[in-house]
């Protein structure tokens, strides 16, 4: 199983904010197992989707030159469970971004109802001792393409995001 918890980005503004969607489907096996008989999307996986939305936002802002690791869920609150048929919309907003780390607020909504809110803290690790190779460029680019980042993304000046030529 690949660890993909968002389906695509609908908005991506470098270093500032991003919106991604996650369609919850009964075809996903983990929905059946969390509470047998009551299929729902585990909120731990909602956090993972929030972290992927926010993590890619900050990793792009630092040009993917450090490993962005979800270091801490500084706060998280959920108001109801997402169930098959729901579309979760994750909105991430960068609160603070430095070379060594970042703090991002993310909300999860279904329609106009706020499903969850979290504040995520990422550590940005330098490649080297104890930090494995950052990524395989081909794999990362394929993922970013799947996410439509270079179709809809904008840089700081409002221009289309340039696709890196790794």
């Amino acid at each position, binding site marked *: 199983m690949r660890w993909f918890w968002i389906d695509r980005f609908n908005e991506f503004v470098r270093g500032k904010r991003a919106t991604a969607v996650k369609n919850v489907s009964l075809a996903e096996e983990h929905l059946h197992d969390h509470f047998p008989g009551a299929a729902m999307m585990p909120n731990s996986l909602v956090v993972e989707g929030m972290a992927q939305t926010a993590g890619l936002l900050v990793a792009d802002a630092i040009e993917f030159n450090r490993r962005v690791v979800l*270091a*801490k869920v*500084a*706060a998280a609150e959920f108001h109801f469970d997402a169930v098959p048929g729901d579309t979760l919309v994750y909105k991430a907003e960068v609160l*603070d971004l*430095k070379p*060594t*780390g970042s*703090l991002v607020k993310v909300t999860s909504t279904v329609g106009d109802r706020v499903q969850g809110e979290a504040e995520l*803290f990422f*550590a940005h690790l330098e490649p080297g001792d104890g930090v494995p190779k950052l990524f395989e460029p081909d794999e990362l680019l394929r993922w970013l393409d799947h996410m439509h980042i270079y179709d809809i993304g904008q840089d700081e000046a409002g221009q289309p995001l340039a696709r890196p030529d790794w």
Partner: protein
Amino acid sequence: MPSRDEIFDKVKDALVEALGVDEDEVSPSATLVGDLGAESIDFLDIVFRLEKAFGIKILRGELFPEDVLSSSEFVTNGKVNEAGLKELKARMPFVDLTKFEANPSVQNFPNTLTVEDMVRYVESKLAA
């Protein structure tokens, strides 16, 4: 320059948000690790929040001198030696090291830093 009470209030806000503790737990004498449950990654979070709240720049190692605590020059048999204590005092004049000096085992150090020390640290940064 904000008063010490104002600094304390902002430090308290930063610790409440970073550590998820209640406001009344953040007393001046509370230790960050022992009483408030801070873990190593929390220090990065706390640094971020203090920098933002006070508009200061906190350099790596200023609040947690990991380089001193892992140096063979300053640590002998798991204890910070005299040169190490001297270095800690010079680097961290805002920390009251009296208790730590009684048993300067490296593993006791994380339990040394108190809320009051953080307030003094911010005060020294703002005065600089």
